[in-house]
């Protein structure tokens, strides 16, 4: 009964999404306020019904309703309750439903926080999101129904993929989707601007906080994903450049470029066409990521080659959404007049350079991700592109962006002076060059990569400090109070750049100085690594809720004194029989010590992997710093004031509607 209700809710949601997608856009085109007024109630109703559908599926998972095929395939009666809930989006069908729910949620947020917009603008924005949502709902109903029943009803389920049974996986996909799908708001604003033909600074100001919030979620999602890989895969790696990771990283790069380009469009009215194009690209990359991960074109456990219906549907949908937007872009872009002029050396030109670098880096990741597909499609054989390509192409491409992140915020708009900049930056330059040469020596000997990484990180840190100092130079009275008075947008940028410096330093240090050993150990054996001695105390069997685990004990000592004990596990999951490695990690600010059990070679004899990972924790701390910077920037006073004003004039919105319609 409940699953059927869910299905009914999906059908109703689709009908509302179609109404939300078609009527308001038509209304905005014809200047019909009644049709435009459909946008908000339709979007809110759509959200309610998608939420009901999602709730019904979650209920089926929580109550172990194995008559539903999706539950039988992806859950298991002994699965802990929290994972039974997260299994709701563990499957293809469930994850697309989550996607749609998140989209409906964002649309809902737009309906609440868009009263300060002209009514035709908000009608178009909500309408575009309704069209995107219709596509996803139709996809679910036609090809990926999560509520299909099974007959006969199986006694128990097949279990959730053990890899996904990790606390990191509870938050990772929803955060990632909040980010992916959040770019739909910036996209909808861009399309609305193209449809209306009005490209002004106001448009950039409206879409900027939405873009930043989406970027924040994507940053959290990627950070959590990397944390999960580090903890769960048992190889000590934190980024593998695999297609699934790239599918989230590519939109992140596009979103980062978009945030910077929106800043120029808002402040100076320049780069309008480019900003619109980036907004389309950022959301297209999110859709593309979904397509790549969900259609199985790249690599997956089961290819859809035997049943490409889903892939063809998504591809057709991509064609309509992306192709349609790009056609609209090509038609409308000549109407945009470019805004304020600027010289070759100015904040605008530096931000443009930043955009070029980010887009080039995006292109390199996209190319590496899709290259195997291109080769295969042209019948040129099977190849795979691995980390060596990405490290040797992406890293040098992105490095100039780090340099620019230091210069850009200090340069004036319109026209900056090169000699003056050189004077302001010479100390930062001297300090970062000196750190690049000397600091690696104090960590563990000179290393080329560590040197460049530290140099760039110090460069950003010192330019951030100069930025603060220059802002405070002419302040009278308490410097601390003046510091707190600085706009949140400025703080956000500074913290964001500081987070970037932190992550660069972390990556450079851990890549340069990590050590690992992979050894065969008997009970009582000791292995030494980077000043730590690991003594293998043996393995005991232990029962988990839905698995059996071999739990190893490693006593770790340093400098002759016992330091801590690690318990890496090897688990066999009851339902699927799949073995999983559960790494044991002793976390620290300047280093992690990491151990994982390999294979059982004989009685009390195991292969054991131990890793010494200096500064690896910085990656995730820096992710938190980037997130904080994004949050501050998104909630700058000027956006909040715009919202508060609308609180007063929500009711006389009709007057605005007529105005909007005339325009």
């Amino acid at each position, binding site marked *: 009964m409940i699953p059927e209700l869910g299905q009914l809710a999906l059908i109703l949601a689709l009908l509302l999404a179609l109404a939300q997608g078609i009527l308001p856009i038509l209304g905005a085109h014809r200047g019909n306020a009644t049709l435009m007024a459909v946008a908000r109630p339709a979007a809110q109703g759509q959200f309610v019904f998608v939420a009901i559908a999602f709730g019904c599926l979650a209920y089926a998972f929580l109550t172990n309703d194995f008559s539903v095929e999706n539950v039988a395939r992806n859950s298991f009666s002994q699965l802990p309750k929290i994972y039974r809930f997260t299994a709701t989006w563990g499957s293809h069908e469930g994850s697309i439903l989550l996607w749609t729910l998140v989209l409906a949620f964002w649309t809902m947020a737009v309906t609440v926080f868009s009263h300060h917009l002209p009514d035709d603008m908000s009608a178009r924005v909500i309408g575009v999101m309704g069209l995107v949502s219709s596509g996803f709902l139709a996809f679910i109903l036609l090809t990926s129904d999560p509520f299909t029943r099974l007959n006969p009803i199986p006694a128990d389920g097949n279990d959730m993929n053990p890899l996904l049974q990790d606390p990191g996986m509870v938050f990772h996909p929803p955060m990632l989707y909040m980010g992916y799908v959040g770019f739909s708001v910036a996209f909808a604003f861009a399309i609305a601007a193209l449809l209306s033909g009005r490209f002004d600074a106001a448009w950039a100001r409206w879409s900027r906080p939405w873009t930043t919030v989406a970027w924040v979620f994507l940053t959290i999602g990627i950070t959590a994903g990397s944390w999960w890989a580090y903890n769960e895969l048992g190889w000590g790696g934190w980024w593998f450049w695999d297609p699934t990771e790239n599918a989230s990283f590519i939109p992140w790069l596009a979103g980062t470029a978009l945030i910077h380009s929106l800043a120029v469009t808002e402040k100076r009215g320049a780069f309008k*066409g480019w900003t619109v*194009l980036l907004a*389309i*690209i950022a959301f*297209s990359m999110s859709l593309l990521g979904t*397509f790549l991960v969900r*259609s*199985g*074109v*790249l*690599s*997956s456990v*089961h*290819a*859809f*080659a*035997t049943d*490409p219906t889903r*892939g*063809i549907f998504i*591809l057709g949908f*991509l*064609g309509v959404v*992306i*192709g349609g937007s*790009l*056609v609209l*872009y*090509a038609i409308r*872009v*000549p109407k945009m007049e470019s805004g304020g002029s600027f010289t070759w050396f100015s904040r605008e030109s530096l931000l443009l350079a930043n955009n070029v670098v980010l887009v080039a880096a995006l292109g390199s990741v996209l190319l590496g991700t*899709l290259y*195997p*597909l*291109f080769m*295969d*499609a042209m019948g040129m054989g*099977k190849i795979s592109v691995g980390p060596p390509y990405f490290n040797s192409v992406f890293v040098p491409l992105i490095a100039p962006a780090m340099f620019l992140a230091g210069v850009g915020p200090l340069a004036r708009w319109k026209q900056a002076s090169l000699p003056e900049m050189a004077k302001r930056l010479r100390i930062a330059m001297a300090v970062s060059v000196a750190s690049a040469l000397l600091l690696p020596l104090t960590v563990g000997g000179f290393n080329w990569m560590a040197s460049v990484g530290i140099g760039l990180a110090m460069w950003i840190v010192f330019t951030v400090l100069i930025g603060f100092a220059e802002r405070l130079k002419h302040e009278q009275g308490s410097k601390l109070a003046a510091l707190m008075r600085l706009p949140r947008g400025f703080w956000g940028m500074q913290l964001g750049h500081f987070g970037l410096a932190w992550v660069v330093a972390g990556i450079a240090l851990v890549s340069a100085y990590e050590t690992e050993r992979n050894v065969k150990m008997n009970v009582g054996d000791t292995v030494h690594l980077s000043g730590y001695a690991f003594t293998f105390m043996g393995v005991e069997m232990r029962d988990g809720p839905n698995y059996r685990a071999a739990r190893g004990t490693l006593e770790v000592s340093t400098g002759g004194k016992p330091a801590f004990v690690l318990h890496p596990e090897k688990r066999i999951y009851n339902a699927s*029989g799949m*073995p999983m490695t559960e790494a044991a990690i002793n976390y620290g600010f300047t280093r992690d010590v990491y151990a994982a059990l390999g*294979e059982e*070679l004989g009685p009390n004899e195991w292969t054991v992997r131990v890793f010494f990972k200096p500064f690896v924790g910085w990656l995730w701390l820096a992710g938190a710093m980037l997130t904080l910077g994004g949050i501050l920037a998104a909630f700058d006073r000027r956006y909040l004031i715009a919202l508060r004003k609308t609180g007063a004039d929500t009711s006389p919105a009709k007057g605005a509607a007529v105005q909007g319609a005339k325009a």
Partner: protein
Amino acid sequence: MKRWLPLIIFVALAGFFYVGLHLNPREVPSPFIGKPAPAFTLPVVGQAGVTFAPEQNKGKVWLFNVWAPWCVACRQEHDALMQLSQAGVPIYGLNWKDKDREAAALLAREGSPYVVTADDLDGRVGIDYGVTGTPETFVIDKQGIIRMKHIGPIDADAWQNKFLPLLKELNK
């Protein structure tokens, strides 16, 4: 023209995706398909003095399954193979690079789906067959020609859609 460039790039990409959808990323073409199965003579696991050579199977359609005791994916496949062998499908094994000599004990403990398992200790025969990893399964026809190669564990889907139609045709 410049303003149409993003669209043109996208259309080209979409074309590749369309072709890509019809390709199977796990399908690595084997140059051995349609060629006679390379000859070898190897000792048989667990039966001292007995040897196995593919010529012995002339006149019947058989599966040649490359596996190893250290291979986790092969354990996954084990149940499926047991069922198939009980259903009368002749499966011959190639115990690939079993340095720790565990195959005999493992088959005795878990049951053997194989008629016999040839012991390829140094992996030479594996190289002759172009083995890239375990498990891999070859279908060899009555004339001793390799007709298909399957990479990865045999699951219900692969059996229904790949093996069964081919075996029916070959056994006609």
